[in-house]
């Protein structure tokens, strides 16, 4: 493959990695399941791949009280092996692609890739996950909804690595559903994550693959808190923004969002 001409670095520590990724032309590679496929488009900007997947500092899963901390290089398979850390995330991950892709792909890679159909994202938006971003001189902690900007676009700065995903887990119940085109390796057509906070009369609604990034239907969430549940369907229809060449397809996906929300609300 043409990218054999690129250089490769395998730093031993996070600090060494941060010293490398700040250099021009140095690109982090974790599992590589997105990067190796998209490399061609970025090829004029990259001369060295910096391998971060095996760094100890990016490989941990910790639950302290109601805070879950996920190292950015934890693979899907390793997350699933830990069982019940966060059932909705495990559910979303277990539907990703194939076993072989789940052995390669990392949760951090899914976030940085920022695909509108990225399957970890609706659940992480629902939980209002925070991301820990480290560079040599600075640590930033940002809500995921601010960090992800649009298709393939994030607020990651040159020289920064995503090190940790931090999730505060309230008392909740949830419903997750992914509608895909094919049985496996499916890129979502619509994915939905709804959660009900047990201690408050509040819901959170997150939709994947129906906009440039995950959509949180905050207006509909407020209607719920006000008891105006009957206004939610129309609001959802107008909130999600699937882009499609064919009108009917976009309309179908909007209806799918309305229906799946309705199902969630009926089963609270």
């Amino acid at each position: 493959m043409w990218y054999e001409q690129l250089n490769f670095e395998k730093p031993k520590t996070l600090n060494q990695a941060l010293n490398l990724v700040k250099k021009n032309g140095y690109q982090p590679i974790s599992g590589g399941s997105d990067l190796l496929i998209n490399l061609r488009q970025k090829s004029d900007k990259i001369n060295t791949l910096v391998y971060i997947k095996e760094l100890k500092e990016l490989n941990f899963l910790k639950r302290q009280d109601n805070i879950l901390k996920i190292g950015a290089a934890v693979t899907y398979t390793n997350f699933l092996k830990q069982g019940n850390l966060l059932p909705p995330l495990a559910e979303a991950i277990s539907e990703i692609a194939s076993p072989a892709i789940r052995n390669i792909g990392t949760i951090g890679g899914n976030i940085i890739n920022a695909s509108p159909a990225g399957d970890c994202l609706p659940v992480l938006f629902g939980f209002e996950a925070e991301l820990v971003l480290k560079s040599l001189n600075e640590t930033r902690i940002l809500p995921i909804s601010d960090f992800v900007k649009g298709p393939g676009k994030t607020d990651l700065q040159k020289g920064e690595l995503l090190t940790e995903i931090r999730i505060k887990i309230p008392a909740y119940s949830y419903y997750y559903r992914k509608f895909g085109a094919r049985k496996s390796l499916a890129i979502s057509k619509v994915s939905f994550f709804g959660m009900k906070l047990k201690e408050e009369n509040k819901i959170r609604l997150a939709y994947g693959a129906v906009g440039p990034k995950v959509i949180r239907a905050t207006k509909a969430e407020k209607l719920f808190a006000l008891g105006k549940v009957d206004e939610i369907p129309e609001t959802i229809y107008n909130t999600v923004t699937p882009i499609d060449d064919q009108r009917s397809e976009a309309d179908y996906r909007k209806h799918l969002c309305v229906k799946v929300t309705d199902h969630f609300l009926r089963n609270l």
Partner: protein
Amino acid sequence: MNLFVNGKKITTSASLTMRLVDFLRENLELTGTKEGCGEGECGACSVIIDGELINSCLVILGQVQNKSIITIEGLDEPEISAAFEETGAVQCGFCTPGMIIASSVLLAKNPSPEENEIKKAISGNLCRCTGYTKIIEAIKKAGKEKQCGTSN
């Protein structure tokens, strides 16, 4: 850099950004591992790395330093190959090495998998010829035979 392929230590100065599938096929002449799509969709390039099923078209050498790789040539699973032959699960044969690799990873974890588990385990392996029924049958048969083999 070093890696272990089918139990043998290999030392190479090949580029660390070379794809594993190319290294296996071109440098080591292990051509049982096939390349179909080159994009992680078909599973023809499946190998086992440290016990896990991986698409060798999506991995570069730098990522497998000191790791242990098993290809179809090094897989010691006569029951699986025989079951594939006997049930007619092989037509053109292009998907077969990948299917057998995926089957062996499944059967190592669970020798008597349900149909559903089998479908999940081979969900990353495409076959254009057989329609999967015979492949699923072959995997069930291989599981049974492996169990008999170990209990005898």
